[in-house]
């Protein structure tokens, strides 16, 4: 029975299949006895369609914030129970303890 994940894994590992033409890939799919629907999604290079066939919704793949140090500073301040005015906060943001620590550890 055709296993689409095993097939993709094989394509990913195989120097010939990885850069195969559409026709070559069609032959490989036929040889592996892929179903017409899965073959069509793979040959159509439609990742979302293939994912939908496999019951997978689109993923979010962001794992990095753009301003972590401000959040960390705010958290640390909240945890310490310290209230600051806005001018003090902006100074702390400019050179946060975490950044100072990171810079110090580089030297």
């Amino acid at each position, binding site marked *: 029975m055709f296993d689409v994940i095993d097939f993709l894994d094989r394509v990913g590992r195989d120097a010939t299949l990885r850069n195969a033409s559409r026709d070559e*890939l069609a032959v490989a799919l036929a040889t592996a006895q892929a179903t017409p629907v899965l073959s069509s999604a793979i040959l159509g290079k439609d990742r979302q369609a293939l994912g939908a066939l496999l019951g997978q919704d689109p993923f979010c793949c962001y794992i990095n914030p753009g301003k972590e140090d401000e959040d960390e500073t705010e958290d640390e301040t909240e945890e310490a129970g310290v209230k600051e005015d806005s001018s003090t906060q902006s100074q702390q943001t400019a050179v946060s303890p975490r950044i100072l620590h990171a810079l110090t550890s580089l030297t």
Partner: protein
Amino acid sequence: MSSGAHTGSLVCVGIGMTLGSHLGPLARSHIEQSDVVFAAASDGIVELWLAKMHADVRSLQPHYREGKSRMQTYREMVEAMLTEVRAGKRVCGAFYGHPGVFAWVPHKAIEVARSEGYAAHMEPGISAEDCLYADLGIDPGKFGCQHFEASQLLFYQRRIDPSAYLVLWQVGVVGDQSLKRFATGAGYRQILVEVLARDYPLDHQLIIYRTATLPTRQPQVKRLALSALPQADIGMEDTIVIPPARLPEVDSTMRARLSALDSADVIDG
């Protein structure tokens, strides 16, 4: 397993960008030998592939929700992994690409685990950065290469060197101060263009690059002028590459000082 008082451990491995092509033998071994695997994959198909390597692969994807701060999401991901570490398990975090490149969660999880006395380390993987060097024919050693999370150019006053490559990450959510959105629109990218226009002409050609995550696909490379960036279709997986706009300036003063040292070396020698 750790021989210390704390038996739990954590390893964060990179699974690379392309299913089947990039996973290294050591990362695969960590996935296979751990007690539990937490997966942060680029898409659900890659996650299904990981699930074939271990009976207990737990997706970190359900932690995301539009309207919820991604910082909260990231902290929950760290906590999910640490909970199992504290329970004495060998935990593997399997992250797409390289687990240490533009990835807050693995770094934080390792930091927290170590602070609590657990063994924790990272195994590198092939990142989108590595792929773009290959696919776009860029050598970062030629002119230098700067990498920024795109929003940082708007949130902070950063200095760009337009004589080096500039790579911008997460442009799809550029300018999102709330961290609660999965996409920002043309108005946000227009502000990014205004910042970039301080150092680049508006007709400077950029590259929108997307690595192939499935091995049946090829990388996507689109070229456009800086001025066209607001109207461009930019998704979560896209990275913007900005080639140098000018050659580096010769530093005559430093060259003269180096020449003086060279001459002194010849005399001393």
